């Protein structure tokens, strides 16, 4: 496990994090820094405050409280000393840093014409640590294959935040591209995969080159709006499987329909905890009514144990299983 994300913290915070038990450190999912309030880490579904020596506590008054100096340094380091290059990111409220990790930002927003233009006085940071877990899709992938027609089924993966959607997608892309097909018995060659990675999270691209292993036959459109990106992929890159993260707007749904009709398998994710939830969302309900997706996978998590349930297009339960590699490793 690489701890390359530690490099982005200022010295004072880094020292505390390095004092953590290594078992805990390797499973850190989020580090939350709020100016003048306790330093928090989330690991394996639980939260802890950190005290000055890197010890764990649950009492806010004992915890270390990052100073203005700390937050300034952190911002300076994550923006590569160049906040002015981050205007688009500040509008969206997060910065993706090398390694595919994502830093969410909170502070005072500056409006222009009623829309958020950027964030200033940034005082809250949520560092979400991206993990590459090979084999995260081992259990699920065999269920997503249409063996008769030798293709991947149109799949919508539903889960609340922090349940490993992105890690799962990354591993799906990798396995389909390599032709590994999970724990099943299928022996097909790899397929062409297209990833539309609006937030640079799936592939963790640096200068257009994926930072994670997403497979040899995979093309990535980095930082591209999903709807437009899907159309671009369909027109120019001829993927067999199209992978997108967090669809939700009307134009996303249109692009999905377009891809389905073009004979491309789509694997998409959305926030939600059940297929019923999705019906309530105007943009997505159409897709569900028209049975656009052949398979729904709903992820759930209790503490460190992860599982998924599969439903077919008519929302009948097909399968429920524990997911993830042995040991139930945490993935964010």
């Amino acid at each position, binding site marked *: 496990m690489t701890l390359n994300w530690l*490099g982005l913290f200022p010295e004072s915070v880094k020292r505390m994090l390095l004092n953590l038990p290594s078992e805990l450190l390797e499973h850190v999912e989020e580090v939350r820094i709020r100016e003048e309030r306790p330093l928090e880490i989330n690991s394996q579904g639980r939260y802890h405050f950190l005290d000055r020596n890197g010890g764990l506590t649950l009492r806010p008054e004992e915890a270390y409280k990052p100073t203005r100096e700390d937050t300034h340094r952190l911002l300076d380091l994550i923006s590569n000393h160049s906040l*002015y290059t981050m205007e688009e990111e500040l509008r969206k409220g997060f910065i993706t840093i090398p390694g595919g990790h994502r830093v969410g930002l909170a502070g005072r927003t500056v409006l222009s014409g009623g829309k958020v233009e950027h964030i200033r006085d940034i005082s809250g940071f949520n560092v979400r640590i991206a993990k590459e877990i090979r084999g995260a899709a081992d259990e699920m992938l065999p269920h997503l294959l249409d063996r008769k027609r030798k293709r991947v089924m149109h799949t919508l993966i539903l889960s609340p935040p922090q349940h490993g959607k992105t890690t799962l997608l990354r591993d799906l892309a990798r396995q389909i591209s390599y032709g590994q097909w999970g724990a099943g018995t299928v022996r097909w060659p790899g397929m062409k995969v297209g990833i539309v990675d609006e937030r640079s999270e799936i592939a963790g691209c640096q200068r257009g080159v994926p930072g994670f292993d997403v497979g040899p036959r995979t093309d990535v459109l980095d930082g591209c709006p999903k709807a437009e990106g899907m159309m671009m992929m369909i027109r120019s890159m001829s993927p067999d499987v199209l992978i997108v993260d967090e669809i939700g707007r009307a134009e996303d749904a249109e692009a999905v329909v377009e891809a389905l009709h073009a004979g491309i398998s789509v694997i998409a994710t959305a926030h939600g905890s059940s297929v019923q939830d999705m019906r309530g969302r105007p943009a997505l309900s159409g897709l569900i009514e028209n049975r656009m997706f052949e398979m729904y996978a709903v992820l759930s998590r209790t503490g460190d144990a992860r599982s998924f349930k599969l439903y077919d297009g008519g929302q009948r339960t097909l399968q429920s299983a524990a997911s993830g590699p042995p040991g139930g490793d945490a993935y964010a």
Partner: protein
Amino acid sequence: MLKLVGALLVIGAGTLAGFYQAQQFAVRPRQLRELILALQRLETEISYGFTPLPDALERISASLRDPLKSLFAQAAQYMRPDYGLSAEDSIRKALEDYWKRTSMKNAEREVMEQLGGVLGTSDRQDQMKHIALAAQQLKHEEEAARDDQAKYEKMSKSLGLLIGALIVILIF
């Protein structure tokens, strides 16, 4: 005989010191000009190129002459992730390392340190304002430096020679 050699040495030393002083007066406006141009390039890199600060400094350093070249290159170097320094610290450390090798004075250094404190910490428009302000202050210094040059450059040269001569006369 020995006395004569000693006298010549003293006069020679005085003259050289005078020339060195004159050289400082001549070089300071030139370096200031170069620094102003460098800041203008930085402004362009930031406002049109969206170039991250370390890359921008490196590019600018490539077009400069020493000692400013090393100053900018060193600042970019300190900004690398393995140093873990903020932009402000990187620039301050680079100034500490290389300022003595320039002919510029403390007023300019303060301008640069102030600029270092805000570089990279705000949006483009704000950055441009800060850089323009710094360039403006440096221009004032440059004018003053040119006046000094006109007044003192020749004088320093003759003064060196004369002081050398004076010492010789006093010792004899």
